[in-house]
């Protein structure tokens, strides 16, 4: 009769810290975050499998292709740790089961994670802190640094610990509950509003075109466009670029187009 092997909270935290640091350290085209995943599992594996061959087999199963968003995807690691603990205590969990869980969850969580961390939280925090900086205030970059560390670390740690504690149920809650939709929708409203604010701040395009109409000078910007809707040119430019992005024109190509457009309109005196 075997004694039960249990992990302490400290073991789970040690494992998390390795992922927190080195998730992208050896990011590569062949297996993406594979070595980082296995690296983060080492403290758990060494504790659970005193037998060298068992430990080796455990590391090897986690050296397979793995790629997710490191913050929200951390729930997968939590689940994996819980599974390893059960396996070490005699539950017949196959390598295929580990792989199934990991590859099945990494895609959806990468989608949600990238949207939340790179698409919503970071741009909103940036927009606010860029705004603060622009008022000649150095608090901008400093607040940004502190806030990002606090937000990202706490999301990742919560994901990791909940994955370990609640296992698969945790993910089902995240993926299937209405909560995540509500959060993403609310954040999207905030995000789009703030993006609009940035258009006004950072795209100060005003046309220089003017005509002489009889005795009076007619300035296209002040006499017509500003009366129709201020910020019409920056708004139109952004919407045109957006429609091209949606059509699949690559960002690098769009940069080229914008640089050319800026050069031509600048030389012609349109702007």
């Amino acid at each position: 009769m075997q004694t039960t092997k249990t992990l302490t909270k400290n073991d789970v935290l040690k494992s998390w810290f390795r992922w927190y640091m080195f998730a992208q350290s050896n990011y590569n085209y062949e297996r993406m975050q594979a070595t980082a995943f296995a690296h983060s599992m080492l403290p758990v594996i060494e504790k659970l499998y005193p037998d060298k061959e068992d430990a080796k087999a455990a590391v090897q199963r986690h050296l397979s292709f793995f790629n997710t968003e490191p913050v929200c995807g951390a729930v997968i690691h939590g689940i994996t740790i819980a599974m390893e603990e059960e396996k070490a205590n005699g539950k017949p969990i196959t390598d295929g089961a580990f792989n199934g869980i990991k590859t099945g969850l990494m895609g959806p969580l990468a989608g949600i994670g990238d949207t939340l961390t790179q698409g919503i939280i970071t741009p909103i925090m940036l927009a606010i802190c860029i705004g603060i900086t622009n008022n000649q205030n150095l608090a901008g970059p400093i607040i940004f640094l502190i806030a990002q560390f606090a937000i990202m670390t706490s999301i990742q740690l919560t994901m990791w610990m909940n994955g370990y504690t609640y296992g698969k149920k945790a993910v089902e809650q995240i993926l299937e509950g209405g909560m995540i939709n509500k959060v993403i929708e609310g954040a999207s409203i905030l995000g789009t509003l703030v993006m609009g604010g940035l258009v006004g701040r950072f795209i100060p395009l005003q046309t220089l075109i003017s005509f002489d109409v009889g005795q009076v000078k007619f300035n296209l910007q002040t006499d017509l466009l500003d009366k129709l809707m201020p910020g019409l040119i920056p708004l139109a430019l952004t919407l045109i670029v957006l429609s091209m992005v949606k059509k699949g024109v690559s960002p690098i190509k769009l940069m080229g187009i914008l640089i050319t457009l800026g050069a031509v309109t600048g030389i012609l005196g349109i702007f």
Partner: protein
Amino acid sequence: MHISFLQAALIGIFYYLSWSPWFTYVGFFTFNRPLVAGFITGIILGQPLEGALIGAGINVIYLGFISAGGAQMGDPSFAGYVGTALALVSNLDVATAMAISVPLGTIATVLWIAKMTVNSFFVHWADREVEKGNVRRLAFINVFPPQILLFLVSFIPATLVVFYGPDAVSGMLRVMSPSVLHVFTVIGAMLPALGIAMNLKLIGNSFTMPFFVLGVILSVYFKQDILIIAIMGIVLALTVTSLRYSGKKDVNV
């Protein structure tokens, strides 16, 4: 302003650190962004506020920057550190700094691709060591070889461009007339449209786009600060979601 080799090397080191694990994974969300890059470069060059302002401008272009599945649209960090350094030394205004940073960031994507390719070899090294039973070796392989490689492909190019670049930029500026500089200003004013559009591709839809138009009006017509607009955004987001989701909890929309 003259840039010493030590200053150039410090900027190179921070550029390396911004892609490294040493600031934890959150380094990617902080030291990697041009806002922070500009601030740090400014501190190294003795002009923190100017640096932060230039970094803030460059960052708008990369607002929609998303690195997903290893694909990249340029290197915002390179544009941030190197672009700010060149702009400060050559006394460029923010719009011109933005215009010169973008090509820098685009070229630097090559460094990322090189790293991602060579790193694949280290995975095989890890396979071999684990096969031999050296399980702990994996920790070493996941950290040190890729970091030495990253240091070489990031520190060296960034330091060299920061150290030798200002001559090229000032040579370029000398032959430029004010009208050419005006063209740079126009380009600098157009590029943020890309960063904003990239982000809107993700969060903009028929339901949220009216809020985007509202944001433009608040900023251009009512001349509100981003901070005030963000606070209004939070109020709107809370109100709208609680209205839309009231009474249909746990239902996918």
